[in-house]
């Protein structure tokens, strides 16, 4: 069993037990158990190939686990398809950016409202008052989200034409449109400059204040140290250590791995 949450945050929102995923004989994720407390910022770090992204894919439902289980707010997710998990409040971004490149930034975010439309079926064919209200609401909220990620000026630019940093931010806004309780962020800082990273960290913190639980996967340890409540270190698909940032910094196994040079 995993270490219990450290008091402050309360009941676990996500619990994984002995989670396992193999790719042709390679154990990408092996016997991973951990709890993510509600309202926490939970970071997963480790070198490339440690299984961090596979873990995100297991939680978001892109992959099914070969063994083990995961539950979200008491609901078993193990066999639930990815699109249904969104309705329970799980959203994600992708390590390799996957925007709808031909759609504008605004339309990317609006697509994120898929599970939140309130339109009677017949109004899809004959647009009435409820339809118009829903469209206006989606548009306004999408603009707010773009503003939140600092992109309100780029709303009408096709996603494919945005800069790399903007695309990362747009993915974040799109994921937030689903109104998640748990947000999975996969290597958000990759390819960002220092200023952009700072802006990103501020936004992650303000999300937590808004009540969103965050799982942050990162390659770069320094980045997560001052934002995460708990950190899980992964290596070769296994859990190397889990604890508070202070504990992680003091742990000999983690230090050894660091001195090995790979985690930098």
């Amino acid at each position: 069993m995993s270490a219990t949450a450290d008091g402050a945050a309360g009941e676990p929102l996500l619990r994984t037990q002995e989670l396992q995923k193999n790719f042709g004989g390679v154990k990408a994720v092996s016997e991973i158990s951990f709890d993510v407390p509600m309202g926490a910022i939970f970071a997963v770090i480790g070198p490339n190939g440690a299984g961090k992204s596979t873990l995100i894919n297991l939680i978001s439902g892109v992959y099914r686990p070969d063994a083990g289980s995961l539950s979200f707010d008491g609901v078993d997710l193990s066999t639930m398809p990815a699109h249904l998990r969104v309705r329970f409040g799980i959203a994600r971004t992708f390590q390799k950016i996957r925007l709808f490149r031909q759609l504008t930034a605004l339309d990317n975010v609006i697509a994120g409202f898929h599970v939140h439309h309130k339109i009677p079926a017949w109004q899809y064919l004959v647009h009435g008052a409820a339809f118009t209200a829903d469209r206006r609401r989606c548009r306004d909220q999408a603009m707010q989200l773009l503003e939140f990620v600092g992109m309100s000026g780029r709303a009408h630019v096709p996603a494919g034409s945005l800069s790399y940093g903007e695309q990362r931010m747009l993915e974040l806004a799109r994921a937030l449109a689903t109104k998640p309780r748990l947000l999975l962020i996969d290597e958000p800082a990759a390819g960002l400059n220092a200023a952009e990273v700072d802006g990103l960290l501020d936004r992650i913190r303000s999300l937590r204040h808004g009540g969103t639980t965050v799982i942050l996967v990162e390659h770069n340890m320094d980045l997560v140290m001052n934002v995460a409540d708990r950190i899980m270190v992964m290596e070769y698909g296994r859990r190397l250590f889990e604890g508070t940032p202070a504990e992680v910094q003091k742990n000999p196994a983690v230090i050894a791995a660091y001195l090995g040079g790979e985690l930098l």
Partner: protein
Amino acid sequence: MTTTIVLQQAINGIVLGSLYVLVALGLTLIYGVLVQINFAHADFVTLGAFAAYFFMHLVGLGYIPSIAVALIVGAAMGWLINASIFTPLRRKNNELLPLIATIGVSVMMQNLMLAWFGPIPYAFETEFSRHVIRFAGIFVSWQNVIIIVVSALTIALLYVFMKFTFLGKALRAVSQDRETAGLMGINPNFLIMLTFVIASALAGMGGAMLAPVLVLTPFAGTSVIVKAFAIVIIGGFGNVEGTILAGLIVGLIESYTTQFLNPGLIDIVVFALLLLMLAIRPTGLISERREENV
């Protein structure tokens, strides 16, 4: 009596099957290297058949040289379609655009041939068609002997080329991993061009040999391409061994369906097999599953 028929149809099936293999191998080679489909591939078959026909009738050097002419015509078409369609579209990095563009090329080629050669089927008789070997109640024309020998030789040659020559190894490297080929010091664009030329030469040559078996009209390509698709899917796209096996199976299905059921059912049987295959095992007879990398 029945055994003779079964044997006779087995031979007919193998003749047909080895020709389908020639055509389908081209599609599979291109798919292996580029992950693209040339829909006009079978129209190169038709063009090869017409080239052989007119060379034989106008120049009169006999059937074997006309196969070589068809091969050259096919190779030229391969170079042309790569240069005009696939190279310009490569930077768009879209898997469906080249397929759609080559459907256009196919429609163009068929109607150009229709305008030139007319809709009436050509009777493609060669000096070998009427010489028949009789053996234990089975008839084999010299024509069919030539088909089997030439296609078997070609397939063997291709196999040796792919397995043992430097270029062949480079080709296989590209089909497995685009970057390795660069490391081998070969321009990938050259390899892609070479693939098109080889694949289309096979199609042209297959045309010269299919022509006596087929109803030779400008639209002959359509019925060939749909079967070639069935073969590459059943064999597993990009898989050479699977394609050979599937080609022979389809040839046999065709000859046995003609004999024991009804020739009208051939396409239905072949495509029912295709859809079944796609439903249960989309990666082909001999292959492993891959999971998408996210």
